[in-house]
C-alpha cells in the first residue's frame, strides 16, 4: 500500500518543530508500524538525508521505550497495544497518517519523535520501592499472600512506563503511572510498612516534575497498553489521604 505521512521533525529541545510530509510505497499489511518507519528511514538514508529519530527497543510490547502519537492517539488506534505491536493491517492504501511525539511539559522532545521521560525515573527513585536490601530475606513462603491479592497487585505492576497515560491526558497528569506503582506495592504485605511514606514522597515528586493534576477523565486507562485500571488512581488517593491524616 501507499501512504501519506505527516511527521513531526524537531532538531532539539529548544528548536521549533514542524510537520513534514512524506510519501511511502510498498508497505505491506504484515509490517509493524515501526518497520514501516524503518523502511522510510532506509529511503531517507539513500537520499543522504537525516533519518527520523524515534524510540523503540524490544519491539514486543514490554520494554515501554516506544511511544508515538498516531493520528492523535497514543500508540495508535488499537486498544491495549504499544506502537511496536501495531501492524499496518490497521491502515489502508492511500491513508494519511499523522505521526507526532508524546507531548507533555514533563516530557521534553529531544529530537523528532524522541522524548525525555527521566521524570518517571525520578518519581520511582523518590520512593517507588520496598526498602529491602539485596542478598538476604526471610523464606519466601513465610509470607502467604492470597491469590486474589497477588493478581490485583500484578495488574498494577504490569505498567511498562511508556508514558501513554501522560501523553493522552489533557492535563498531562502522571496519576495512572504513579497510582499503578503505589497500588502494586501497597497491596502486598511486604509493601505496607512504607506505604504512607511512599505515597507522600512519590506524589510530591510527581508534582515537582511538572505533571498536571488528575481530573478523572479516564482517558489514560483507555490508551494504556497494559490496561491499567483508573482504580489505581483511586487507590493512590485513598493511600495519600490516609497518610496525610495519620502523618506524625
Amino acid at each position, binding site marked *: 500500500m501507499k501512504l501519506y505521512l505527516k511527521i513531526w521533525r524537531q532538531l*532539539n529541545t529548544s528548536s521549533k518543530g514542524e510537520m513534514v510530509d512524506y510519501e511511502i510505497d510498498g508497505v505491506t499489511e*504484515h*509490517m*509493524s508500524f515501526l*518497520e514501516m518507519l*524503518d*523502511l522510510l528511514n532506509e529511503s531517507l*538514508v*539513500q537520499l*543522504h*538525508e*537525516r*533519518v527520523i*529519530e524515534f*524510540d523503540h*527497543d*524490544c*519491539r*514486543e*510490547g*514490554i*520494554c*515501554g*521505550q516506544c511511544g508515538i502519537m498516531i493520528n492523535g492517539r497514543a500508540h495508535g488506534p*488499537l486498544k491495549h*497495544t504499544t506502537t511496536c*505491536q501495531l*501492524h499496518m493491517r490497521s491502515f489502508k492504501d492511500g491513508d494519511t497518517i499523522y505521526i507526532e511525539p508524546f507531548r507533555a511539559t514533563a516530557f521534553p522532545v*529531544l*529530537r523528532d519523535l524522541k522524548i*525525555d*521521560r*527521566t521524570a518517571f*525515573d525520578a518519581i*520511582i*527513585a*523518590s*520512593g517507588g*520501592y*520496598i*526498602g*529491602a*536490601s*539485596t*542478598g538476604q*530475606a*526471610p523464606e*519466601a*513462603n513465610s*509470607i*502467604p*499472600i*492470597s*491469590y486474589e491479592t*497477588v*493478581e490485583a*497487585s*500484578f495488574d498494577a*505492576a504490569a505498567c511498562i*512506563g511508556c508514558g501513554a497515560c501522560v501523553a493522552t491526558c489533557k492535563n498531562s497528569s502522571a496519576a495512572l503511572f504513579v497510582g499503578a506503582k503505589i497500588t502494586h506495592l501497597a497491596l502486598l504485605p511486604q509493601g505496607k510498612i512504607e506505604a504512607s511514606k511512599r505515597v507522600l514522597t512519590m506524589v510530591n515528586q510527581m508534582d515537582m516534575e511538572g505533571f498536571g493534576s488528575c481530573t478523572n477523565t479516564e482517558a489514560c486507562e483507555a490508551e494504556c497498553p497494559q490496561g491499567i485500571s483508573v482504580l489505581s488512581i483511586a487507590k493512590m488517593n485513598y493511600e495519600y489521604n490516609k497518610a496525610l491524616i495519620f502523618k506524625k
Partner: protein
Amino acid sequence: MLDSKIPEGLLADKWNNYKAKAKLVNPANRKKLHVIVVGTGLAGASCAASLAEQGYNVQSFCFQDSARRAHSVAAQGGVNAAKNYKNDGDSIFRMFYDTIKGGDFRSREANVYRLAECSASLIDQSVAQGVPFAREYGGYLNNRSFGGVQVSRTFYARGQTGQQLLLGAYQSLLRQVNTGKVTMHTRHEMLELVLVDGKAKGIIARNLETGALERHAADVVVLATGGYGKVYYLSTLAMGCNSSAIWRAHKKGAYMAGVSWIQFHPTCLPQHGENQSKLTLMSESLRNDGRIWVPKKVGDDRKPNSIPEEERDYYLERRYPAFGNLAPRDISSRAAKERIDAGYGAGPMKNAVYLDFSDAIAAQGKKNIEAKYSNLFAMYEKINGIDAYKEPMLISPAAHFTMGGLWVDYELMTTIPGLFALGEANFSDHGANRLGANSLLQACVDGYYIAPYTIPNYLAGELKTPKISTDHPAFAEAEKSVREQLNRFLESKGTLSADYFHKTIGRLLYEKCGLSRTKENLKEAILDIQSLKASFEKDLLITGDDTLNSELEKAGRIADYIELAELMCHDALQREESCGAHFREEYQTSDGEAVRNDSDFCYVSAWEWKGKKQSPKLHKEQLTFKSVELAVRSYK
C-alpha cells in the same frame, strides 16, 4: 594458562569456602572506591544496587532511556529455583545435574553448582522486593515445569517474569540513586575500555543525546551488557542489544569463550517478509500445554484444523517420548528445522510448525488456559491477526540466547584484571545449551550473590593503587581511537545503509553458522565475512552528524558484529564435535542425534584477539567432572 580459580573442597562446600576466605573492605574505605557497571538488566542493576548498598560509589550506564527497559524485561516464562515446594524430588544437586546435562557437559561443575545453590535465596529476596510471583489459592508460591527437567521448579509472574524481576532490581537500583550512592547515565553507550598498567580503570562512553564523548574512571569495571543474538539480525532480542561493550573489551585483551554457542529458541513467530525486524518469542512455558506437530504429508496445504489427527506428526512426542514437547531447546529447535527442511513446514512460507492447544483447552477448559497464557495469546493475535484459542499457533526457531561471551573465572573476572562480566555477557554457567528459566536466574545470581563477594575481594587489593584521573594518557588515547572511528563512519558516503550490512551478516550466519554447521560452510562463511567487512569499510552510507544519530550508533555496533561473526565461525569450525546448540552435521548418529567427543573436546575454547590481520588464538580451559559422569545426553 587459564586459571579458573576454583576453590578447594567438596563441590557442595566450594562457595562457602570461597566466601569464608574472600577479602573484605572496611566500610570507611568503601567510600573511597568507585565502580562502573555497564548495563542495567538483571545482572547490571542487581550488581550496582548491591555494591551501592555496601557503600561503594557506583556509576551505572545504559543505552536505553531508562534502566527499566533493559532486555531482561522481555523474558516471559520464569526463573528456576531448587525450593522443592512441589515435593517432587527436587534438590540443589538435582538442579545442578539438570543444568550441567542440559549444557551437554560443557560447563564448569563448580559454577553450575553455585548457581543451583544460590537459586532458593533469590526467590526469597525477590518476594521481599515485591515481585508478584504466581500463588496458589492457599497463598503459597506456585511453580510450573520447563523444558529439559522432570520436576516443577519454575517460579513465574504470568508471562512477564522478566519484567517483574527487572522492576524489582530497577527499584533497588533507583533506591540507591536516591541515596546518592549510584549515579545513573541513561542513553549512554560504552565505546571503549580504558586500561592502566593492564588493569581495567575506566571507560569511554558516548552520550547518545548530545553525541559528546565522556571519560569515566573507576577502580573496577563491570560489564553486564547481555547477549549478542542480535548479530543474526532477526532474533528475539531488542533492536538495541549489541556486542560492542564486550567486543571492545575483547580487543583490549579479554578472551571470548564458547563464542558460537547460540541458542535458537524453538517457540518464536516465523518470518513473514523482507522488512521484518524481529522474531517475537512465545514463552517456552506454552510447551507445558501445547502440542507441537506438522502434517505427515509433504506440502500439505490444508488449514490445520482440517488435518485429521492421524495425519499429524507429533514429532517431539514421537522422537523423545520421555520429555515429549518439553524436550530441551536445542533438541526441539533442531527437530523443527529437520521437519521444515524436509518439506513438512506449515504456514504461508512453509517455515513453521504448529503449536496446538486444542487438547489442553478440551481437558482444562479455555478459562484455565487463559489464566496461564492470556498475554501470550493476545500478543500472538496482535502480530498475526489469528486467534490461537481456535487455530494452532505457527512457530519456528529463532536466534535467542548466547551461551558464549567473555571468558570469566570462578570470580566472574575476565582475563583483564579488574574487568568483570556478569549475566549473559559472560560464558560461564550454561555450557553449550541453556535450560529454560535459567537465564533470569544466572543474571540475578551473578549480580545479587556472587559479584557482591568477588568484586570487594578484588577491590581490597586496589585500595593502595594510586587513583587514576581521566587526564591520564590512557583515557586520551582511548577517546582518540573512538573519535577516529566515529569520524570514519560520518565520512563514509557509500551506497549501503548500516541495516543492509546487519541484515546481510545475519542471513549469512543463519545459513552457515546457525542451527547446524558444516566444515565446508564455515570455511566459506569466514571468506564471505571478510569480503563483507571490506565492503562495509568502503560502501557504508551514514547520514546525519555527530549529535543524536541512530544511524551512527548502528554503524559502530555492526562493525563489531562483523568481527564477532568471524570469530563465531572460527570457534564453530575448530570444534569438531556436536554439543548442545553446536551441531556439526559431520558428527551425528544415523538417527540425527548429536555426537559429542569427550576425549578431544572436553574443554572451553577461549579466544584471544590478535589484531585485524591475524587469526584469533585459541586457549583451552580443560573441564574436569568429579561429581557427575559424562553421559550421552538422552531425552528419549
